[in-house]
C-alpha cells in the first residue's frame, strides 16, 4: 500500500497541492482532475522523483525518501515525457533500463520480448527509436515500467496518442497486474475502462 500522509508540494511561492492524505491499495487507481491541477507532479512525488515540500509518502509504512533504494527496487515508473536515446534500438533501450534496475541480461531479454510482444512492438525491437512514431514511443515508455515485475507501478497517461485498439492492449496489460501491484495512473480514456475494476482518486484545486 502506498500512502500519502499530509503530502504537499510547492514551487517557490506557488502551492500545487496541500495536506493530501490517501492510501492507494493493491489494484488500479485512476487519478483524475483538471489539466494543470498537479496530477503529474503527484505521480512524480509517488515515484520518488521529487521530494514533497511537506508531509510524507510511505510504502508499507516506511517513508520512501528514507528508504529510497528498497522502494525503487519494487517501482516501475512511466513518465509522460521521456528523453529517449534516439540512436538506441527498442531492445537496447529495454536492456539499458533493465541494467539500471539491476536485472541480469538473460531475464531482461526474456522480459523485454514478453512485454514488447504484448504491446505489439516485438517486430520493431531492433529498429532505432528515431524511427518510432509517437504511439510507439508511448508504448515503449510503458513497456520499460514493467521490467522487473514491479509491485508499485506509476504510469502517467499511458494511452495518449494511441488508437482505441492499441490503447485497449495497453490497458489489458496494466489491469493484468492489478492483483499483484499497486498501480496508479492517469488517463484521458476513463470511459473506455468500463470492463475493468478500479478505484478513482480525484485531485482538485482545493486539494
Amino acid at each position, binding site marked *: 500500500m502506498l500512502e500519502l500522509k499530509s503530502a504537499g508540494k510547492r514551487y517557490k511561492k506557488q502551492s500545487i497541492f496541500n495536506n493530501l492524505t490517501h492510501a492507494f491499495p493493491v489494484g488500479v487507481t485512476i487519478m483524475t482532475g483538471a489539466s494543470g491541477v498537479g496530477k503529474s507532479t503527484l505521480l512524480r512525488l509517488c515515484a520518488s522523483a521529487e521530494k514533497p515540500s511537506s508531509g510524507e509518502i510511505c510504502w508499507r509504512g516506511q517513508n520512501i525518501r528514507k528508504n529510497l533504494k528498497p522502494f525503487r527496487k519494487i517501482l516501475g515508473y512511466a513518465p509522460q515525457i521521456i528523453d529517449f536515446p534516439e540512436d538506441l534500438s527498442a531492445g537496447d533501450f529495454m536492456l*539499458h533500463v533493465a541494467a*539500471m534496475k*539491476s536485472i541480469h541480461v538473460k531475464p531482461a531479454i526474456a522480459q523485454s520480448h514478453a512485454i514488447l510482444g504484448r504491446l505489439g512492438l516485438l517486430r520493431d525491437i531492433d529498429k532505432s527509436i528515431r524511427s518510432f512514431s509517437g504511439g510507439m514511443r508511448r508504448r515503449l515508455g510503458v513497456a520499460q515500467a514493467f521490467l522487473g515485475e514491479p509491485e508499485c507501478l506509476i504510469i502517467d497517461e499511458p494511452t495518449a496518442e494511441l488508437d482505441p485498439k492499441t490503447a485497449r492492449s495497453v490497458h489489458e496489460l496494466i489491469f493484468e497486474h492489478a492483483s499483484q501491484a499497486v498501480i496508479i495512473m492517469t488517463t484521458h480514456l476513463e470511459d473506455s475502462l468500463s470492463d475493468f475494476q478500479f478505484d478513482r482518486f480525484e485531485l482538485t484545486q482545493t486539494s
Partner: protein
Amino acid sequence: MSAFATFFKQQWSRHLRSPALWVVILGTMIGARYIIPLPDAGYSTLSVNNHYPEPSSSVMGLQLGVVTALLMTPLAYIFLRAGPTRVQPWQIDAVTPSRRFARNLGQGMADISVLWLLLFFVGVAALS
C-alpha cells in the same frame, strides 16, 4: 553479462553508429598527414640542439602526439561528452535503484576506447 558490460557495449555501439565520430577520425587522419613537413618546407620545425631531429618513427610519433594532444583530442573529447550519444532517459534513470557507478564506468571506458581508436587511426595515417 554485467551492468558494466551492458553499458560499455551500448555506448561503444552508439559511438560507432555516430557519423560525427567518423568525421573526427577523418579530420585527425588528414591532420596527421600534414604534420610531417616536406624537406624544403620553410615553416617552423622542431629542432634538438640546433639540429633537425632524425625523422625517425619516434620523432614523427612525438610530433603527431603533440598535435593530436593539443588539437584533436580536445575536439574528440567535446564530441564524446556533448554529442547525441550522451542522451540518457534521465526521467527513468533517476528513479532506478542502481548505483550510477557501473553506468558511468562502462560509458567512460567506451569513451576512452574511442579515443584509442582515434589514436590508432592517426598512427595508421602517419605510417602509411
